[in-house]
């Protein structure tokens, strides 16, 4: 179980990058909005099949619907923005840079959300994030120099 969990966690990362590029390629063929539409309709179909296959009894963990704020339903809306913008960016910069830049944005927004909701800041996350940012910047500068040399 332990090794399967490790393998699947890595594959989750692989699948994120593959889905992003495939969506961008679809968008190139049929348009950005249309590509995002098919992403959601096929995702919904597969999510329904998975739900039927696992056959878990559907229980609501809390007492009433009214305890769940409206914004909790809006993740799908944010997701549409994420899918659309990702498709738009995918062919503009190298895959690895997009991966790292998304990660850095995610990390620092996560730190801010933690601070606002839990009123705590993880020093390790800030330190680690700054290291990732400096490593990425270093490589970006290398690329810039290489491009300038090619142009010269």
């Amino acid at each position, binding site marked *: 179980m332990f090794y399967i969990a490790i393998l699947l966690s890595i594959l989750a990362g692989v699948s994120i990058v593959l889905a992003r590029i495939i969506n961008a390629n679809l968008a190139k063929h049929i348009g950005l909005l249309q590509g995002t539409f098919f992403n959601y309709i096929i995702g919904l179909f597969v999510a329904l099949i998975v739900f039927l296959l696992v056959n878990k009894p559907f229980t609501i963990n809390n007492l009433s619907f009214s305890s769940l704020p409206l914004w909790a339903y809006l993740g799908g809306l944010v997701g549409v923005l994420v899918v659309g913008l990702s498709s738009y960016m995918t062919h503009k910069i190298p895959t690895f840079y997009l991966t790292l830049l998304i990660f850095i944005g995610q990390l620092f927004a996560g730190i801010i959300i933690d601070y606002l909701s839990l009123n705590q800041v993880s020093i390790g996350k800030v330190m680690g994030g700054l290291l990732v940012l400096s490593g*990425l910047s270093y490589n970006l500068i290398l690329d810039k120099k290489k491009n300038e040399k090619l142009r010269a």
Partner: protein
Amino acid sequence: MNNLVSAFIGALISLMIMINGTLANFFGNYVSTIIIHIVGLFSIVAVIIISRSKIKIHNQIPLYLYSAGAIGVFTVLFNNFGFSILGVSIPLALGLLGQSLTSIIIDHFGLLGMKVDKFNKKKYIGLSLIILGIFIMTIS
């Protein structure tokens, strides 16, 4: 500008994970995934109607191009399984490892129609900093 938009996508993802996590606490993973996709579908249909775009089925393009939505559902399933056994931080670090390796390989060979961007040995210094940063985040 490209870099800012990319980082903004990451910020949106953090917001989305927080929102979807709240929904999943309430409905469980499977039902919440369905709700998220229904809301997403309504949102994109609204945008398409407002912008007066058209939806057509294209038969002449390769079928695999339609697979991203399905892959996204598996991302959620794999993550859930990882979190249930390994906790939160280890699957996050492993997921980032998977993303990084896949990205480097795709760029190096120019797979899936991406431009070839060969891995330069000088970049090992930057890569080491990135790995160290992820390591510190995971153990902290």
